[in-house]
């Protein structure tokens, strides 16, 4: 424990290498498993890669959306505040599955025919919008946790509002928001399974297909569950190491 806390950089590196090895190497041991797992090993691996891609893309876009909307909710400009409140209200108040279906079925009707997007992109957009709304509240809480006195001190020193935000507010608010953001990311790994509803061949979809062909749901779904657990463990290890890197909770350690 002590070593991992003191060397967060190495832990992040190890978790990332572990994740990559797992994603591209898991087909080899899985292939040795008995029916119905062994023959479908490559499909499991492919499904896991799609799940991780979906999580990483929508997760990153979701953080950016969260920062923008979180700032917008604290803006002095009322229409911007209303817009961001509306966004969070809309997304949190409707089911994720509906949002995914909406982006998949309704948005193509709005867009011109030349601008059609793939199923995967639809899922990524819907998931990013969804997690972005939840991230908004985390980011807002993080920004509010930065003492106003530090903002005043920065402004009194002549830093511009933008410099004050980038140098003083953002780094400290991220420290506060990170545990909650990590929580949302762990949810996202699993929420990405809803993409199966719009025929994105991610991990859950793979499991559904294989059990439908083999009539053996128990080993198939246990394998899927195991892969999800390994993925979420890798992600939480990464975010926990990132928290150590950014020294979340330094105050508590040093005061004790």
């Amino acid at each position, binding site marked *: 424990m002590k070593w991992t806390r003191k060397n967060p950089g190495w832990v992040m590196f190890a978790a990332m290498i572990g994740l990559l090895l797992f994603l591209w190497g898991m087909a080899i041991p899985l292939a040795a498993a008995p029916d119905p797992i062994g023959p479908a090993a490559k499909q499991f691996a492919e499904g896991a890669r799609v799940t991780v891609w979906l999580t990483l893309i929508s997760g990153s876009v979701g953080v950016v959306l969260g920062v923008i909307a979180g700032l917008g909710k604290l803006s002095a400009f009322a229409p911007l505040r209303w817009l961001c409140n509306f966004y969070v209200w809309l997304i949190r108040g409707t089911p994720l599955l509906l949002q995914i279906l909406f982006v998949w079925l309704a948005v193509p009707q709005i867009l011109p025919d030349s601008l059609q997007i793939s199923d995967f992109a639809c899922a990524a957009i819907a998931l990013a919008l969804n997690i972005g709304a939840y991230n908004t509240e985390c980011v807002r809480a993080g920004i509010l946790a930065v003492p106003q006195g530090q903002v005043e001190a920065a402004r009194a*020193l*002549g830093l511009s509002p933008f*410099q004050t935000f980038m140098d003083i507010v953002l780094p400290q608010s991220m420290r506060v928001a990170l545990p909650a953001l990590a929580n949302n990311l762990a949810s996202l790994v699993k929420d990405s399974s809803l993409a199966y509803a719009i025929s994105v061949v991610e991990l859950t979809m793979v499991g559904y297909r294989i059990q439908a062909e083999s009539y053996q749901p128990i080993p198939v779904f246990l394998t899927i569950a195991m892969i999800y657990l390994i993925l979420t463990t890798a992600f939480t290890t990464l975010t926990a190491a990132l928290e150590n890197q950014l020294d979340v909770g330094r105050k508590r350690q040093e*005061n004790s």
Partner: protein
Amino acid sequence: MDTHQANLRPLIEAQKVSKHFGSFHALKEVSATFYEGQVTAIIGPSGSGKSTFLRTLNRLETHDSGSIRVDGIELNDDLKNLDAIRREVGMVFQSFNLFSHLTILRNVALAPIRVRKTSPAEAEAKAMALLERVGLADQAHKYPVQLSGGQQQRVAIARALAMDPKVLLFDEPTSALDPEMVNEVLAVMRELAHTGITMLVVTHEMGFAREVADRIIFFDNGVILEDTTPEALFTQPAHERTKAFLSQVKHGF
């Protein structure tokens, strides 16, 4: 009222400055001029407007009416003026307000790097020299939370000095400190006062005000009641209100 510094250059000119917080009239047409090199102590009871007045001078509070000129620049909604003024006016806060995610050295070097575009190496060398001056060079690589209150306030002073301000505003710099740490901060301020920098100090430290200040202002109820020399104020206060205040705070020292 204030004629005793006529040969000096005026640095801050406040004319009929008023400020409301809701229905509370915090400043009532306050006028005062502060001259280059002058150390002014601002005293008065809580809620008398002394901190608010100080905070209007670099626009941490906006004033409702009246005018404030700093080094000839009008303080208004023009952001260019504001940036120019804030570069020249340093401020030290009651609660230090150090940037808690940055090292002590970085706290001091940040503003010169960002605002004056000094190179990081140069800014850090200067920050180190300033930390040396306030006796904290050995703490440069620690974080604010690892320092005592008195040390943090000395860092805050070094941070304000890093911008080479023409004026330093102190907003009750020792009020949040444990008694045994007050002196280390006052010692740094005393040393500063002797260098000839212009200082405005809102304080409850009457001993310090009397010893270091060239001029003392007594605030009460949003107006300046007395504006004179420390000697005159402490020996022959002109108003009953001042006498009452002084007899109250005298128990403290």
